């Protein structure tokens, strides 16, 4: 029970401070910090032959302030999900580290990690075991971590189901008897029953009906308010991102190419890729058709990325310099947004 009441404590770390830090400390300390996180995969290697390397995520550094929502956008295959899996401990980073409240999570163990970071997955049809009842699914985190007696756990399950707007009778049902939106509520309940600090939402609404999407997004916002949660919100739906997030990071081929506040990114994007992404967003206005953003539709092969700036083959502004040197992710003069483009200030 102690671990529940002090979410800042890393259970396995000796001498870790408990949740008694002052407000000033918490304000300056990002809840989640990614330091030059990289993941390299080996493709097609057999028992006796060497495979090719694939750099899925390269030197991603991000800081998410406590209580904020960081949106992570980018097209399919850009490394968003690999990044999420590294944060969840499903994939070991090749380099770099993840810090929660300023403390590295490197060897804290999966259970300690689970108390701080919980996932909400994309597909509520695949994220719930079809052979288990909802109560067992939602209770699992408490049971695995040995929290509470069976009666206390049952009470917490009932509370949490209530919290996410599910009727109590859902507890005895199987996931197959619930709708997509209800299933996603079960997934949210499972993520929140441990009272984590950080929730990784990997496209939590993309598998849902449009009418249900808004309900789930509003639920996520309400829960954030109530528990002071920090979200990393992965999505390729820019409308959803604009509705929900405080800050946006744009990923391309495993790297962050631009990062800034929601207003900056949506009003004045500096990186040509961000500009193209925003231009590609569909409007509900009829007759306009699918916008042509002039990028072509071919994403470069991640196992053989272009030289210099990885975006140069598709970039309308590309020049000789872009083929040779990779632009660093640099802050502009005001220092609140970063972009990785040689011409970002132009």
């Amino acid at each position: 029970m102690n671990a529940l009441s002090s979410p800042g404590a890393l259970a396995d770390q000796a001498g870790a401070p408990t949740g008694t830090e002052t407000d000033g400390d918490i304000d300056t300390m990002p809840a989640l910090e990614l330091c030059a996180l990289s993941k390299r995969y080996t493709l097609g290697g057999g028992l006796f032959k060497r495979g090719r390397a694939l750099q899925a995520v390269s030197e991603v550094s991000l800081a998410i302030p406590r209580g904020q929502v960081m949106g992570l956008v980018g097209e399919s295959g850009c490394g968003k999900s690999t990044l999420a899996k590294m944060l969840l401990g499903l994939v070991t980073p090749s380099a770099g580290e993840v810090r929660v409240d300023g403390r590295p999570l490197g060897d804290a163990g999966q259970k300690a990690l689970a108390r701080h970071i919980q996932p909400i997955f994309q597909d509520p049809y695949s994220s719930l075991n079809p052979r288990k009842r909802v109560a067992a699914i939602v209770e699992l985190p408490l049971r695995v971590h040995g929290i509470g007696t069976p009666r206390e756990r049952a009470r917490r399950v009932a509370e949490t189901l209530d919290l996410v707007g599910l009727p109590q009778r859902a507890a005895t049902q199987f996931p197959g008897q619930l709708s997509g939106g209800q299933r996603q509520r079960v997934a949210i309940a499972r993520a929140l029953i441990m009272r984590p600090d950080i929730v990784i939402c990997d496209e939590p609404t993309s598998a849902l009906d449009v009418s249900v999407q808004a309900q789930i997004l509003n639920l996520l916002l309400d829960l954030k308010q109530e528990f002071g949660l920090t979200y990393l919100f992965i999505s390729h739906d820019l409308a959803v991102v604009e509705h929900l997030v405080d800050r946006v990071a744009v990923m391309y081929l495993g790297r962050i190419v631009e990062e800034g506040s929601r207003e900056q990114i949506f009003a004045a994007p500096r990186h040509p890729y961000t500009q193209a992404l925003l231009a590609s967003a569909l409007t509900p206005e009829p007759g306009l058709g699918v916008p042509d953003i002039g990028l072509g539709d071919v994403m470069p092969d991640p196992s053989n990325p272009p030289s210099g700036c990885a975006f140069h083959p598709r970039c309308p502004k590309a020049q000789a310099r872009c083929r040779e040197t990779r632009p660093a992710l640099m802050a502009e003069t005001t220092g609140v947004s970063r972009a990785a483009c040689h011409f970002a200030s132009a």
Partner: protein
Amino acid sequence: MTVSTSTPTRASRAPAAGGRARALSEVPLPPPAWSRVTRKVFGHRGLAIGLVCVGLAVLIALFAPLLAPHDPYFQDISNRMVPPVWHDKGSWEHVLGTDKLGRDYLSRLIYGTRISLVIGLVAALISGVIGTTLGVLAGYFGGRVDAFISYIITTRLAMPVVLVALALASLTGGSLTTVIVLLGLLLWDRFAVVSRSVTQQLRDAEYVYAARTLGCSLPYILLREVLPNIAGALIVVITLEMAHAILLEATLSFLGMGVQPPLPSWGLMVAEGKAYMFFQPWVIAIPGVALFVLVLAINLLGDGLRDLNAPGGRN
């Protein structure tokens, strides 16, 4: 069929008892889950036949001492090769006649059901445990583990089962236990192949990720998250391997390397009768038909279960 109407179900009990006739004429309520299952089972003819035959065989095996008219081991040399009752010289004393030692054929057939079922069940269970363990590990871990286990599976598939079983049985000397263990150690390939491919699909299911994220132990993930979801496919394999094991036992016993006399194995009965097959064909026809019916029934059961388990069959 009549099953769903004769048994009172939850839906038909809910309205007042007097309203039964009216309720039938009106729009039918959606049937409750259990009667849906029975309808599905009995709507599938193969499954129904298989289920009835296998159920009958199990009952016969369980109640063999009550059903058998004679002691299956009692030899009555003065009553050798009595033909079955439908024959001119047959009598109701020995319904299926007697064998070359004067033992009652029906009693031996009834006790033989026990041997066939025990061998089928136990061998399928042993091979199921071996094969499923290997297959789930290979499918879940992939990579080197998968390469290694796949190699073992391929090696096993390259061995002719009958030949290897014969050789090993002749080394150890045939007995009921030997046959069960041998077949259990040989017939796991299909379990491994099936559970490997099904687990590969489940490995990336998000509920497995969720369990891993929580820090669930590996045994928990494999036994509680993965295994229940591959059980449907495995039940089908169990039935197929049971039939396979029963046939192989008969083969081994026929060749003299399996169950040893005087145990009443069906394969052994065929072997003992083969010298008489031209003039008393029923001596091999009767155990042969029993074997055929049991194996066919188990296969029908397996096919039916596979159909029920197919996508759309559940949820």
